[in-house]
């Protein structure tokens, strides 16, 4: 078992020497054994946050990084005992797979027998036993990332830090490896911080997600919370797809170019209402059709059709509907919105 520690960032800001303010003061508590995902578009400060935790960067004065009860702010990465996994794998090209995995053990002066046993364990854990004696340039991307994970975990680090580990892989491999990393992190119970710009990856892996925006934390929460109760429009638009209607409130009725939506809790000042594609559906026969629009695109996805319906808004509404019925471009459809999915931000 790993020695899982909680990690705390207290008032951690980062200004680079060239004056770039990469991170505004941030407070963050990561529970022992938790997988926390840092999510956001490129340049929002995810890597910087990870490097502060790793000890590769120092926070601006006043910031503190704690591992459990220990203040590690002044410790460089060499002294923090964290495992790193990079997008570019960063495997040592002059060493074989087994030598890469044994590297940390060698620096810790473990005996040859101990090293061999631990390397064997890690190869088995990542199911790459056959690759032990290969050189790095003989491996595929997916195999390289497995070796990198094995190497990082071999030394039983206090935390595992992963910076976009799947971004360089193709879609299919990304899915398989994401699944493997998920079960691995759960099985090991290690504290893990995972950086990605891919919201699907974040939702699948994270116990909690930190959505970042220009060096600030926009929202922290479980994937479900963030998806269902986004704290801001930024979060709502970044996670999943959001449908939007603009118009004005008349009592319980929101009027918009495509028709109206009835919502008892409608705030009187609402200028815009939001809802997810899964709360949008084609109105049933005989149902009072409150919204009407024309099909602007229909993508057949096998079990369902992804439908784009123009209701006179800036962007068409998106919904998924069973593939039994065919939809033609320009066809008029009536839509209904589930009330429980409505929100204003």
């Amino acid at each position, binding site marked *: 078992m790993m020695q899982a520690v909680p990690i705390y960032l207290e008032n951690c800001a980062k200004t680079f020497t060239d004056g770039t303010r990469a991170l505004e003061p941030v407070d963050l508590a990561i529970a022992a054994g938790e997988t926390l995902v840092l999510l956001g578009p490129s340049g929002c400060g995810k890597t910087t946050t990870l490097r502060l935790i790793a000890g*590769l960067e120092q926070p601006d004065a006043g910031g503190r990084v704690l591992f459990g009860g220990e203040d590690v702010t002044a410790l460089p990465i060499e002294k923090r005992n964290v495992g*790193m996994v*990079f997008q*570019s794998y960063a495997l*040592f090209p002059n060493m074989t797979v087994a030598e890469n995995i044994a590297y*940390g053990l060698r*620096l810790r002066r473990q005996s040859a027998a101990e090293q061999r046993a631990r390397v064997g364990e890690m190869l088995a854990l990542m199911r790459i036993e056959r690759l032990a004696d290969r050189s790095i340039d003989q491996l595929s991307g997916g195999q390289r990332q497995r070796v990198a994970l094995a190497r990082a975990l071999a030394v039983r*680090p206090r935390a595992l830090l992963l910076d976009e580990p799947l971004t360089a892989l193709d879609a299919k491999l990304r899915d398989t490896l994401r699944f493997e990393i998920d079960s691995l992190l759960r099985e090991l119970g290690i504290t893990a911080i995972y950086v990605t710009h891919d919201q699907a990856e974040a939702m699948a892996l994270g116990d909690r997600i930190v959505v970042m925006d220009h060096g600030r934390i926009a929202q922290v929460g479980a994937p479900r919370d963030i998806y269902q109760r986004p704290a801001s429009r930024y979060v709502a638009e970044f996670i999943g797809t959001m449908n939007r209607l603009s118009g004005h409130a008349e009592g319980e009725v929101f009027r918009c170019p495509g028709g109206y939506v009835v919502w008892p809790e409608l705030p009187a000042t609402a200028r815009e209402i939001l809802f997810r594609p899964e709360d949008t559906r084609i109105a049933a026969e005989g149902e009072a059709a409150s919204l009407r629009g024309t099909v602007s695109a229909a993508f057949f996805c096998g079990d369902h059709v992804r439908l784009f319906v123009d209701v006179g808004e800036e962007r068409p509404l998106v919904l998924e509907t069973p593939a039994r019925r065919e939809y033609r471009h320009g066809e008029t459809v009536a839509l209904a919105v589930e009330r429980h999915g409505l929100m204003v931000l």
Partner: protein
Amino acid sequence: MPRRQFLLLLLPAALFFSAFFLLPMARLFFIGASGESGWLAYLAIVTDANYFRALWTTLAVAAVTTVLTLAISSIAGVFLERHRFPGRAALVAAMTLPLAFPGVVVGFMVIMLAGRQGIIGEVFTMFGGERPIFAYSLAGLCMGYVYFSIPRTILTIMAAAEKLDPRLEEAARSFGATPWQVVRDVILPGLRPALISAGAICFATAVGAFGTAFTLATRIEVLPMVIYTEFTMSANIAMAAALSFSLGAVAWLALAVARSASGSTVAAAG
């Protein structure tokens, strides 16, 4: 590629190689055997004690020069590649300046530094010490060779240092590697191809250097000087040719060994 096009594109290299290397080398090879001792002249380089000593001195000076040059260029090259400071461009330009100096000038500079009136001597006497004069010793010769070897090497190493992946060093550090372990396990292996190719050229150049040796090697016998003496003083053209050919062979061997060790990244083998 069609055969005709292949031959056509090979032509410039083939012509150049024949005109400036193959034909003169072949001629030299036969002239070497044209003296009184015939083909035995080629054996003289190992049987004649003077020639053999000169060969060893040449190889030793070249080896020491190569090691020192690589050590200095690696440290300076990696440092210059990683740090940006005012005057950096000027410093890089100054370090590559000796490329334009003839060997004789390099020799003069060593004399000005470590000769009888040299700056090093002045400094030592200023503090009441002995006046060290090593311009005309092996140390002085190596100093001159290192001086004109650094420009070639440092540019190769800076180019290689730029390509080192900083993530590799960070990964090593995450396992607790000390700076020295990072150098041993990441930086040196990363620079290896550049070190081998730059080192081979440095060695070959030092083996054949003449101008600097001409200025400084008044008491030391290195092969290029021996060849010069045989040719001009003794008019022993056959011996000079045999020694020249051997010198070429040694330089070629150094490059070939380096090439096979590094996997064909070495610039030249001739």
